[in-house]
């Protein structure tokens, strides 16, 4: 059982939790994720570790309430417990002195970039952060990013913050103005796809963090398989980060729709009947 120490809503539909998990915090690195199961009837879902504190023995998770499990998670309060959390899983982001790095975050995916930003900064890189969202309220952790970024660019679809438009426009200008060594993009699949398509002709190394459906998360089931350069790879053990220029985004987009009906059904049942018990307080 894993105790929730803090919980905040940081944007509409987006919550953040600080969880007591010393043995996971001990090895957590930027880019790692955990697999979480809320209660004994729960499904196993992967969530990226948005931050961790070895000294306090805590990990921080961010999640957008889009389905039954995340809605149920959002109803938990500090002091409540989560039944199962396993990790840290997946390869950590390669951290080295690349030179000038551009981190592109879309929506909640931005939070995942935060530990990567800290680690890359510590490794002596110069960093431009581009954060994009539909609207101002959906921008996540802008102030935290400002602490470490050498340059911050904000884009919103409606122009309510920063410049009006998409992250790709800001990225294109940055690539054309500066010598960029690596681009790391985390966010909605379409954003990562657009970023990868944009950087390819410039030959700029681009890393994306993929979020396929997972079940067990340790390389045993293959639910999270993705097509990378024509080869089947498992996001849980070979990823979750891959070369954006090699990813078959179309296939992944399709695979993410596999359980759409069931996801909608479970969410509907949960929100309307609340038949299924949420918390496991002890």
């Amino acid at each position, binding site marked *: 059982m894993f105790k929730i120490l803090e919980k905040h809503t940081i944007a509409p539909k987006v919550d953040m939790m600080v969880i007591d998990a010393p043995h996971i915090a001990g090895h957590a690195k930027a880019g790692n994720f955990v697999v979480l199961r809320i209660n004994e009837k729960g499904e196993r879902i992967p969530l990226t570790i948005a931050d961790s504190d070895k000294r306090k023995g805590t990990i921080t998770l961010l999640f957008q309430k889009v389905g039954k499990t995340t809605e149920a998670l959002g109803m938990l309060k500090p002091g409540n417990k989560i039944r*199962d959390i396993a990790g840290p899983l997946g390869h950590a982001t390669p951290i080295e002195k690349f030179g000038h790095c551009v981190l592109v975050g879309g929506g909640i995916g931005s939070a995942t970039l935060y530990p990567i930003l800290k680690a890359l900064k510590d490794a002596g890189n110069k960093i431009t952060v581009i954060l994009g969202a539909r609207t101002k309220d959906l921008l996540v952790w802008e102030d935290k990013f400002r602490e470490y970024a050498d340059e911050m660019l904000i884009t919103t679809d409606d122009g309510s913050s920063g410049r009006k438009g998409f992250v790709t426009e800001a990225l294109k200008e940055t690539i054309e103005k500066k010598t960029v060594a690596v681009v790391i993009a985390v966010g909605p699949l379409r954003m990562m796809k657009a970023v990868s398509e944009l950087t390819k002709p410039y030959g700029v190394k681009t890393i994306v963090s993929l979020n396929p459906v997972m079940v067990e998360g340790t390389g045993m089931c*293959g639910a999270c398989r993705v097509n990378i350069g024509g080869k089947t790879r498992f996001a849980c053990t070979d990823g979750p980060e891959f070369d954006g220029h090699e990813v078959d985004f179309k296939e992944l987009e399709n695979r993410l729709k596999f359980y759409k009906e069931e996801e909608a059904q*479970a969410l509907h049942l949960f929100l309307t009947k609340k038949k299924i018990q949420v918390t496991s307080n002890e």
Partner: protein
Amino acid sequence: MRFRNPEKRKKDFKEVSLGLTEKQALKEALSCLQCKKPRCIDGCPVEIDIPKFISFVKEKDYLGGLRKIREYNNLPSVCGRVCPQETQCQGNCIKGKKGRPVAIGALERFVADYEMVLGETETPEVQSANGHKVAVIGSGPAGLTVAADLAKLGYDITVFEALHEAGGVLLYGIPEFRLPKKIVQREIEYVKRLGVKMIVNWVIGRTKTIDELIEEGFETIFIGVGAGAPRYLGIPGENLNNVYFASEFLTRVNLMKAHRFPLYDTPVKKAGRVAVVGGGNVAMDSARTALRLGAEEVSIIYRRTETEMPSRHEEVENAKEEGITFHFLSNPKEITGDDRGWVQSIRCERMRLSEPDESGRRRPESTGEEFVIEVDQVIMAIGQRSNPILVRSISGLNLWGDGYIVADRDGKTNLERIFAGGDITTGAATVISAMGAGKRAARSIDNFIMGRGEPLSQPPEPVQSQSKH
């Protein structure tokens, strides 16, 4: 052995085999010739004294029979159900030469279930604590065996399991209708009562490294993490929606209880026409699970003939009775999808068996002829690979093949404190062979820690029960 009616059983997940009645068990026990040189024991990977346990059954001392089995085997109700007895103990039974062998597996199950019906489990006496700590990685049949045997000798044992529940393949791999999960839980409770600590959700290699466990005072580490990772053919269409690898399909149902969605949160796709590729137990389990989820037509595609199928004969018979059809000498070439990216059909080539090669094996070769089966779902069950995380994390550990650990018969690896056994050393095999490996590794670890010199490679010997009964 009695089986439930196929028409009824294929609609639910309850156990298919009903075991023996007391009357049948007594009849079987009486038919045992109590050979002076029993060949059945030679066929048993953990060398249970089979005639002896059967002699207890003859006397109606069923708990005595169970106690005798437990001297050798910590998981009798599991082995009584899933061991391939036809190629092991029963395959060797002298009575099988001219007729039917004694139903040894069914008798093993009978005595174990007898105790379960009584509701109590005897706990054998455990030797007083010796203060030595051993870590066991993986809670499948190999790990549970090592843990139980060493705990009986007084060792302080901690089992680390990556998933949220202990049991390994017994839990995520073998379906409820073949091995009810309450039986697995009961066997695990037995191991815990020996003083074994079970820690779930710890992915060794990530949550903690082997080196850290050693620093924390574990004198040796036993690795029994299994081979549950899927193999796949690499043919076009394998990533279409509604193509499952058997390991995912079975994990969803067995571990996550997806057949009870939406009561349980994990879904699994139900399909009308399902093709399962493969000829082993996992293929049979997948096909029969698909049927129970409501499929109208389930077929198995296998590239050789029925004779070469690695599956247990009993499982093939069960599958046939339940209406599953077989396409033998058929090799999938491509899975085709509709414009939405969902499975539509599977294209196969017809094979024939070649003349035996030097190894005596008749390999399938293409005839050039092809055929197409219209399906909504394809399940690939063509074998397993080693579980990758832990093995990749240990530097200097000798590996073979696809990431399997090199270990000798006693479970010794090239690293002094690290022992290994079960599927992670052999590739996918049986529950009982993993238990046999666990047994030998437990003796070898005991010898290592007690400084009894180099453990000799020798046949397994029973760990003597400390029971006073």
